[in-house]
């Protein structure tokens, strides 16, 4: 059993920035990360909207820099997967896969993960044409036709990225307009290899061994069809990693943690930052900002406890 003043769960942009601020405040802080720090940002080929990098920076590069910056101020990081969090006499107890911790303040920055579409064939063909990471898997589809499911920033950006390899990229979107930033939309809509299938949902993925086609349905006309593709990239949103709490904590309908403006959740001394928070925009830039606020709020909380 180890004891710390502050523990941060998750080593993405929010957690690392919280760690950077906490370390600079000389708090007794530890960050727990189940893999290597970086989070979902590591799957992004090029980050173009994080200030300070006028030409853009690759996701892995940016995250390595933020990690090294946090470590420079003395942030300790342990590879631990957190399994449960509970409350014991006002302190928070964290059970990880091979260690237990007591903390006074907890910052939850455990992020989110790609949502499954939930159609037949998806799980069976994962890694065999069904993918959630275009930068990882795009190169396996050289000169092939692929589909991207979704209409947000990630879907449309990654569709354009996939044109580097694929012969043709279909964006399959359930509405009649995209949600992605206008600039990102323009790149896709003007690209000769990209075609958008509007008002269309995927109802199934078909393939022996590997993906061969997707089953489609037009939501306006009800017409069903099949589209031959070798790969299907899912960008239909994210689901929060928020099922670790053994006590009541306020979540929104999607399971994201609800906080006040100082990032405190409904539980005193428990803060949330980054993609796990209930909010409008999920980007690296505001994840980092929320991490900073959470660390500062946690510091104030600790001061009030001792005074």
């Amino acid at each position: 059993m180890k004891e710390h003043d502050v523990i941060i769960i998750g080593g993405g942009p929010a957690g690392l920035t919280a760690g950077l601020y906490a370390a600079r405040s000389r708090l007794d802080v530890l960050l727990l990360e189940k893999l290597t720090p970086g989070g979902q940002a590591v799957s992004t080929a090029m980050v173009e909207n994080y200030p300070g990098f006028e030409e853009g920076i690759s996701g892995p590069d940016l995250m390595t820099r933020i990690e090294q910056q946090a470590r420079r101020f003395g942030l300790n990081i342990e590879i631990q997967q957190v399994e449960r969090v509970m409350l014991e006499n006002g302190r928070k107890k964290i059970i990880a896969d091979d260690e237990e911790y007591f903390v006074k303040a907890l910052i939850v920055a455990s992020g989110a993960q790609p949502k499954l579409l939930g159609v037949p064939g998806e799980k069976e063909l994962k890694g065999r044409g069904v993918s959630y990471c275009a930068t990882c898997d795009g190169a396996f589809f050289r000169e092939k036709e692929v589909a991207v499911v979704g209409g947000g920033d990630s879907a449309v950006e990654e569709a354009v990225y996939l044109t580097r390899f694929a012969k043709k990229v279909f964006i399959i979107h359930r509405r009649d307009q995209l949600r992605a930033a206008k600039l990102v939309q323009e790149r896709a809509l003007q690209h000769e290899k990209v075609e958008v299938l509007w008002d269309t949902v995927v109802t199934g993925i078909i393939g022996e061994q590997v993906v061969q086609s997707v089953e489609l349905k037009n939501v306006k006309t009800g017409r069903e069809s099949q589209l031959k593709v070798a790969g299907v990239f899912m960008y239909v949103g994210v689901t929060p990693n928020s099922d670790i709490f053994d006590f009541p904590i306020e979540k929104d309908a999607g399971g994201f943690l609800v906080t006040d403006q100082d990032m405190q959740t409904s539980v005193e001394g428990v803060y949330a930052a980054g993609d796990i928070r209930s909010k409008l925009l999920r980007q690296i830039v505001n994840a980092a900002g929320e991490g900073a606020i959470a660390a500062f709020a946690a510091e104030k909380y600790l001061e009030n406890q001792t005074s």
Partner: protein
Amino acid sequence: MADFPEVTDSTFEKEVLQSDIPVLIDFWAPWCGPCLMVAPVLEELNKDFSGQVKVMKLNVDNNPNTAQKYGIFSIPTILIFKGGQAAAQIVGAMPKKQYVDKLNELL
């Protein structure tokens, strides 16, 4: 990570298929962010299972034949070979425990 054992198309037969002990292969590429996240976990597995399991990496860029043969369309993919057969497959970067559990099942 420089001295982490790599297997190639030409050494695969001898290093993996003819190995006396199970071999865990990490199919990866340098341009794949999540692949870089698994690397430290594999180094730990290499130490923890020393003598029981060979842990090796295969760069899919330089060794397309083996990747194709085993139908790799997503990286990182971990394949565990036992007695010359692919006995387990784990797609995506996972926490260490998942690999440990799978290895313990096969040993």
